[in-house]
Structure formats: structure tokens, C-alpha cells
């Protein structure tokens, strides 16, 4: 019989009792020797750890909410050996220890991130093109009526597309009345050239280079892959909360973006070679946007940069692709080029760039 004192709450009222434990076969009974009060018997295996902080140890009961016994200091061994061990990091981590758990989690996390980054590359080709097409069409529709269309302008665009994309890999190439130096590839193999790009370009060859680049994204289904990757990263890193996850997410997708950009450049060069269009003007276009020459305001440069990381390396690659002695022809004749440049201004029905939202 121990006379070691415990404090005790029965979970029904807040009255604090000072008790001793009368040991039974597989448990004990709390008793207050002063008042003669005694509680219901409790088996040792019903005890849970509520907390062990500093000097204070508190134990609860699995089936009786609020039922507590506790003590200060160390309990006598006859009782201590029956008490459950406290949880520290959480059950899983406690079982194998902090460092092994941290190592195992690191490996698992690396594997998860790797899979999320890689799976879109394997998954995207398996998604039927018809699904992607339908998604792209649902997203874009008629682009809020912002597509520029004049008979001469359309003919010029068709002529340009035939040269750069003779196999017709892009389902649709359109010109949008938006004064931003950019071009986008949307799901479903749809390429949209912005009027800002056409106005900023000094020759049709530059537009051909950008179109070839976007065609690379269509061929590799980069837009769909990127969407899937973004979705996966958001799901996996979402639980980080705050900015940390978003930041990591951005860095990871950007590094993958660069890889896709580089191989899209490869496609552009290949298509231009097939069409006998000189890659040199495209190199000049990059140089201009990079601020190495006159033209392009800061804001315009930024738009291109944000989605298309620009480097001297990229410019040099287009310069190096120039074949000596090759008989290059302009991508469009002067009349066609002028028609394309005037298309947005000449179209009476086109929606204003920012007229209907966006």
C-alpha cells in the first residue's frame, strides 16, 4: 500500500481531490483517506498520457473524458512501471525516433516531388487530344470577340502558318487585338499571336520565329503538361501554407518551364530551316527585347520575360542556326506583311483590347 499522493479530478465536477491509489490486480482504485471517498476502479491499460511538462505529470482515462490523476515529481516505482509513456513528436515519429523519421520523411518527400514533376510528362501524351481540344475551346471560345480578321490579313496569316507549320500541327492560329508583345499556346493546339507582337516585330521573319516557337509547345503538348504539373505542385505543396509553398512552386515550375522553352526554340529553328526563313531576325528580336538595342519599353520586355525566360544564350542559338550560303526568303512578301500589320486596325468588328473585362 503506497501513501504517495496524487491529485485527482473525476471528470464530472471540477472538485480537486488528494488521493492515494489502492492497487488492485490489474489496476487501482483512487481513495481519499481523509474523507473516506473512493472512486471507481481503473485498469492500468485504460490510462492515457495527458501531459508531462516540467514537474507535472497528468494521466487521463480512455473512456471517461476529464477524468485525471496526476502528481508532482517522480511516482514510486510500483506505480510508475504501469504508467503509459508520453507521446513526444507524434506516434509514428516516436516509434522510430526523430532522426530516422526525419530521414525517412526526406526520402519520401523527395520521391513525391519527383513523381509530381515527372508524371505530367508521362501522363500528358496519354490524354486524348479530343479532350484537350474541347477544354481549349471551352476556355477560349471567340476570345471575347478580340480576334482580328480582314480578308487580306487572314490570307497573310494563313500564308505564314503554311510556311512555318506545313503539317498543320496547330489546330488554329489567330491574331488577337491586344497590345502586348506576346504569343500564347492554349490547350487544344491553339496559338494566339498578340497584335503588340506584330507591331513590335520589324519583319515577318521575326513573327515566323515566334510562331515556330509556339508550334514547339503545341508539338510537345507543353501547355497541358504545365497545367498538370501546376495542379500537382499546388496539391502537394499546398499544406505548407503561406508564401513558402507558393514560392517553391514557382521556382520548380519555372525551372521546368525553361526546359520546355529551350526545346520549343529547337522546333522553331527546325521549322524555319524547312521553310527557308532566316533565323537571324528572330535573334535580333530577342536582342531588342532584352534591351540590347532600342525599342521595346520596360513593361513590354517584362511580359515576354515572365513567360519566356530570355538569355543571350537563346539569341546566340538563333544566330548560330544561320546556314551560310543558304538562299533565305522572307516569310511574307511586303504586301502580305502590311496586311497582317493592319489587320487589327482595319477590322471594324473587333472588340477593344480591354473593352470587355480582362
Amino acid at each position: 500500500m503506497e501513501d504517495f499522493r496524487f491529485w485527482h479530478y473525476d471528470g464530472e465536477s471540477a472538485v480537486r481531490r488528494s488521493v492515494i491509489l489502492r492497487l488492485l490486480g490489474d489496476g487501482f482504485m483512487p481513495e481519499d483517506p481523509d474523507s473516506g471517498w473512493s472512486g471507481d476502479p481503473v485498469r492500468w491499460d485504460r490510462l492515457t498520457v495527458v501531459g508531462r511538462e516540467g514537474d507535472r505529470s497528468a494521466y487521463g482515462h480512455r473512456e471517461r473524458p476529464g477524468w485525471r490523476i496526476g502528481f508532482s515529481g517522480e511516482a514510486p516505482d510500483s506505480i510508475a512501471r504501469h504508467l503509459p509513456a508520453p507521446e513526444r513528436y507524434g506516434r509514428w515519429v516516436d516509434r522510430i525516433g526523430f532522426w530516422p523519421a526525419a530521414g525517412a520523411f526526406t526520402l519520401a518527400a523527395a520521391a513525391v516531388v519527383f513523381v509530381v514533376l515527372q508524371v505530367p510528362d508521362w501522363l500528358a501524351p496519354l490524354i486524348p487530344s479530343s479532350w484537350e481540344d474541347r477544354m481549349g475551346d471551352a476556355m477560349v471560345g471567340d476570345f471575347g470577340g478580340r480576334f482580328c480578321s480582314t480578308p487580306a490579313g487572314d490570307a497573310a496569316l494563313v500564308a505564314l502558318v503554311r510556311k512555318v507549320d506545313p503539317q498543320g500541327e496547330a489546330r488554329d492560329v489567330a491574331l488577337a487585338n491586344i497590345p502586348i508583345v506576346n504569343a500564347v499556346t492554349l490547350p487544344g493546339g491553339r496559338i494566339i499571336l498578340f497584335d503588340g507582337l506584330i507591331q513590335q516585330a520589324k519583319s515577318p521573319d521575326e513573327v515566323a520565329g515566334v510562331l515556330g516557337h509556339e508550334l514547339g509547345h503545341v508539338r510537345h503538348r507543353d501547355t497541358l503538361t504545365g497545367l498538370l504539373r501546376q495542379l500537382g505542385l499546388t496539391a502537394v505543396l499546398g499544406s505548407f501554407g503561406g508564401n513558402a509553398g507558393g514560392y517553391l512552386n514557382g521556382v520548380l515550375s519555372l525551372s521546368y518551364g525553361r526546359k520546355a522553352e529551350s526545346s520549343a526554340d529547337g522546333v522553331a529553328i527546325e521549322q524555319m530551316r524547312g521553310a527557308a526563313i532566316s533565323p537571324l531576325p528572330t535573334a535580333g528580336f530577342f536582342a531588342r527585347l532584352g534591351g540590347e538595342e532600342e525599342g521595346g519599353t520596360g513593361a513590354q520586355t517584362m511580359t515576354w520575360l515572365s513567360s519566356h525566360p530570355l538569355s543571350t544564350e537563346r539569341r546566340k542559338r538563333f544566330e548560330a542556326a544561320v546556314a551560310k550560303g543558304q538562299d533565305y526568303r522572307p516569310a511574307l512578301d511586303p504586301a502580305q506583311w502590311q496586311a497582317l500589320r493592319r489587320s487589327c486596325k482595319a477590322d471594324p468588328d473587333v472588340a477593344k483590347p480591354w473593352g470587355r473585362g480582362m
Partner: protein
Amino acid sequence: MDEDEIGRDGFAFSGSWRAYAPIAFTNLALTIVTLGIYRFWATTRTRRYLWAHTRFIDDQLEWTGTGKELFIGFLMVLVLIGVPFMIINFGAQALVLQGQTGLAGLLTLASFVTILYMIGLARFRALRYRLSRSWWHGIRGGSDDQGFGYGCSYLWKSAVGSLAAGLMIPWSMMSLWNERWNKMSFGPHMFESAGDYRPVFKRFLLFYLFPFIVFAAGALFAVTAAQMQQGAVSPLALLGGVLFVLAIYGSLGLIALAFYAKFFREAVDGLSLAGLNFHFYAKTKEWLLLFLGDIALVVCTLGIGSIFLSYRHWKFFVTHMGCTGAIYTDELTQSQTKTARHGEGLLDAFDVGAI
């Protein structure tokens, strides 16, 4: 013996940051290597430590929430709210692209209203969750209200608060505080909250007075600068201008702090439970020192110090809390309120405070 008379100091904090540091650092390490998922268990460990080192009258508090229930709450929010909102967002973007701006605007407005409702609901449920996992003398708190009505109140009171150039904000804040606490209980007793917004109002008016002061100071500054220097802008005047702009932001922050310090004192002073009246003693100066300390801690440690913020805030809260009155422990019987099996996921998702 059953009655404990207490003075101002019903609350005390006995933790030390050195003892908490091993918890904070291992929490950080495990959170990183689990891609953030350990966060929920980390929160639980932190609270277990903080509650256990908080004494109320004669005994420590206990936190019995678990990482698992917080995690389940998070997953529920992800599936029930995150996914639908992603779809709506995607849909709104597509509508804008197709020129259906009106429809897109309507969709965005609807989702904005829903989010606002959810924030109110989240606040209520987080408070309820925390009370239901906080034990003292073997007794816990809670609420039998699900908080759906509070969500509606939050919606319309926030809307009214923004009327009349925001003049109704103090009323809206205080009446929401009262509504929230009046639905909470501890053991068999209901909390009673009768915070008054009127004493707070004077400080709130500082926000409106401020533009006039800025205008006057700016005019004075411009005149002095013009007199001192005719023609070219002197570096001194430029420095003065920069300091002036910084002073504007600093003063606005100070006004907000002064208002909140007063608001929180009034709000807690209006709160009682059975025979206990709660008080909060921190003045603007203490709040300011808390935030300056936070900033110094985070900046000087390149951000790592932020793992100690919850510790600092809890310590601030407890050491400035007070309680007067009496509580009869034999009348304080077990709470019969229902407890949810999942944690404060909703609140977590919107990142707002519970109290």
C-alpha cells in the same frame, strides 16, 4: 476549500523559450521534410506546451487536441471548399476570355460572398474547437451552436460595418465578438459577453482625423522647404520628404495598434463566466513592444525566429490576462456540449485568428 478567491492575477505563464526551443526547432525540421504535413502535429505540440505552462487560479490548463484531427479538418476543407473554388475560379477565367464579363463578375461576387461567410463560420468554429480541447480541473469548454447563424451575422455585420465610410466598424467588431462568446460555454456555465463599442469609438476617430494632420504637416513642410531652398531640391529636403512618408505609414500603424489595444481591453473586460470577470491589461505601448520585438526577432534571425512567434504571442496574451471574482469548483460540472472530430481546418484555410 471549494472556493478560490482570486485577484488580478488569475493567470500566470511559466514557460521558458529555452525549454520551448527544442520543440520549435524539431517542429520546423519535421515540417520541412514532410512537405508541410507535419504542421498539424507541430501545432499540437506547441499548444500542449503552452497550455501546460499556463496556470489559471490554482491549476494548469491542458490541451488535448491532436494533430490527426487538425489534419482531417484540413483535408475536409481541401475537398469541400478548395476543389469547388478552383473549378469556379477556372470557370470565371474562361468566361472572361469568352467575353462573358457580366456572368464572370456575378460568379466572382458569389464566390466572394461565400468566402466571407466561410471566414465568419471558420472563426466561430475555431473558437469552439479550441474551447472543447482546453481542459481545466478536468472540465472542458465548448458550444452547442454549429456557427451557421454566426456566419450570416458576420456577413451582414461586416457589410454594415463598411457603411458610412467605415464608421460602423467598431460596432460591427464588438457585436460580433459578443455574439461569438455568448454562444460559448465552459462546463455548465455560459460565457457572457457584453463588450461596449462606445469607449473604443474615440480612438477609431483618429483614423478620420489623421488625413487632416497629414495635410497640415505636409503644407507646413512644403512652405519651410520652399523658404529654405529656392530652385534646386536639396538632399535635406528629399530626406525630409522620405521621412515624412515613413512617418505617415508609422502613424497609421500606431493608430491601428492604439485602436486594437483599446478594443481588446474593452472586449475582454466585458467577458464573464459564472462568477468570474475577465480583464486584459495590455496598453498600446505593450502591443507596440510586442510587434517591434516580433519584427526584430524575425529580421535578426533571417526569418527562422518566426517559429517563436506563437510562443511570444501566447505569453503576451496570458501575462496580460487577469481575472476577478470567484468560482465554485463543485458547481463547475462537466460540459455536455458536442465535440467535433475534426480540427479547425476551415480557419486554417483562411488564415485568421480565433480569439
